[in-house]
């Protein structure tokens, strides 16, 4: 049987990465922008795990890093959402396009 190898997984992660980027660049809703950030982070996580499992099974750096990323992503999201809420109080909207009072 042909087991799922590293390339397949990398394809998945890369796809995830670009989906995330695409989402971040196109979605007007701040929350969904945060979600696409999460997507990218997860593609990174997949990378780490995959590399760790397939290439360097001896060490656990990748795994640890993944754990750290997950936690940090959580805190990041928390702060971001706090800010978004704060912003929502003033704009009464969570459309990122509205937040452009400062330019040029």
């Amino acid at each position, binding site marked *: 049987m042909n087991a799922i190898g590293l390339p397949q997984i990398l394809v998945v992660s890369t796809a995830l990465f670009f989906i995330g980027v695409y989402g*971040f*660049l*196109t979605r007007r809703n701040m929350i969904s922008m945060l979600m696409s950030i999460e997507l990218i982070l997860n593609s990174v996580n997949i990378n780490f795990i995959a590399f760790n499992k397939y290439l360097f099974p001896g060490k656990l750096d990748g795994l640890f890093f993944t754990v750290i990323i997950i936690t940090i992503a959580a805190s990041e999201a928390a702060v971001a959402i706090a800010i978004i809420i704060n912003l929502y109080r003033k704009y009464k909207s969570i459309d990122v*396009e509205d937040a*452009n*009072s400062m*330019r*040029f």
Partner: protein
Amino acid sequence: MLHSKIIALVPLLPFAVFLLTGLFGRKYLKNFSGILGTLSLLVAFVISIYTAYEYFFIQGRDANGIFEKIIAFKYTWLQFSPGVSIDMGVVLDPISIMMIVVVTFISLMVHIYSMGYMKGEERYATYYSFLSLFTFSMLGLVLASNIFQIYIFWELVGVSSFLLIGFYYDKPSAVAAAKKAFIVTRFADLGFLIGILILAFYSGTLDFGTLIERFTTHNEYYSAVTAASFMGVSALTWGLVLVFIGGAGKSAMFPFHVWLPDAMEGPTPVSALIHAATMVVAGVYLVARLFPVFSLSCPPALEVVTYVGIFSSLFAALIACTQTDIKRVLAYSTMSQIGFMMFALGVSGYGGEHGLGYMASMFHLFTHAMFKALLFLGAGAVIHFVHSNDMKDMGGLRKSMPITHITFLIACLAIAGIPPFAGFFSKEEILAAAYANNKPVFVVAIITAGITAFYMFRLYFNIFWNKEKIENHSHEEHSHGEGPMTMLIPLSILAICAIGVGFIPFGKFVSSDGKELITEFNPMFSLGPVVLALSGILLALFFYKKANGKSDKVAEALGGIYRATYKKFYIDEIYLFITKKVVFNLVGRPAAWIDKNIVDGVINLSATVADNFSEAIRPIQSGKVQQYAIYFFIGALSFAVLFIYFWKN
């Protein structure tokens, strides 16, 4: 004494007076300055007379019968490069001594005269300080042992003449005249300067003695300067002609003469001193200084001198016939006489009999100084009395101012060349020299002499005869119109000179090679000129003795020619056109415009471009997070593409 430095006092005394009166004159020695100047010049005059006496009679000729050139002293003033340096020196030789005598003498006369003439002038002290400055510069010029020293004092006499012409600086015409005089001579001096540069470069020296020695004997310098040529003319010719241009400028030779008539705006004594007797002959003096080089090494340059001289003299004489401003008439006559001196030098050879022209020229310079100064001072007296320069406002003054009348007559006879007056002898020898060497020149010269007699007596009759213009001096009818003693004494002294100096055996003292030159007096030859002169006088008598329309009729008849001469052949207009229209509009304005709009424009343009560019790229800072992210991502990708694909392979 000749070798002692005391001779330096001659120029230095006036300089001291200049400093004194210039710095403190206005406040402290307001009225004393005249006396001061006069005294200083008296001393200077005595010294120079004594020097002359000692030089010619005590010291006398050396072994091979020539008056040697003595460098009384010499001080290195500015060292350019080894051998080439400006030295401040005093050189004593026949012509320089002759010149210091003339200069100090005339200047002394003018100083005395001015005490009366300028009485009550508020800037009396300033006037005298300028006079002293001029005297100082002129003496420095004639005593110069170094060609650059001459240039320095050349400029100084120029500026002092500028100051004195513009003495009445609140008269715009005076200011304009002063400017004109300075700028025209400056333009000619440009030639002088470049000439000096050329001569100095090839001779490797600025000292007159060395320079002449190097250019007249055959040596490497001589061959170098004659070998080098530009536009087919040898460097030596270029140098000398350029130097002569400088001289022509100061001596008001055509085409640089335009400044001289206007220079009459200055106080009349000044015109007598500067623009008749001394400064204007500086050009002649310069050529005489370099005469050996001219005549031994570079005949072509000498020919230039000849033709410029003769043309100017005729040209000026013609104009003088039609002018009505008496000082302008005198100015043109001055120009014409200097023309005589010039071509006399031009036709002269070097040494012995051929040197007659040189001697004659110097002689004429000497006599001319006397009677021309006399003429101007007389004219000054008349103007002082009539308060006008125009002969239309004059006439019949012989009654009211007899002394002036007599002296003026003497001067006129002298300049007309009637024996036994001074002018006769000098002019005689000039004509003789011309006859001997260059017939066409001789013809023109003799005609000019006749014309001279005519316009001088036109002047004379118009002033002192003709019909009286009572209204001019009704306030003192039949009263005495003479000025104060201070004005009459110089007149008388000069009159005596105008009669007497002709009898000096000039050739004994001054000659081209320093050897004695005996000139025998030939009545047959001098018959022609005298007759011509007399006929000129008679013509004037016929036209101007009584007030009659004859002259106007003739003027009518001549028509265009008359108008042309009256308008001085439109030379001024031509120059005005060239400067105002051509130089200002075609060079000045464009330069200013280019600077404002192109050179500066480029600088401003760069600023504008930056500004517009920053304006143009403003929108990319749109304030939208996602656009920022897009730029970010594009940047990252382009880096990747650039460095992974293009860079790696």
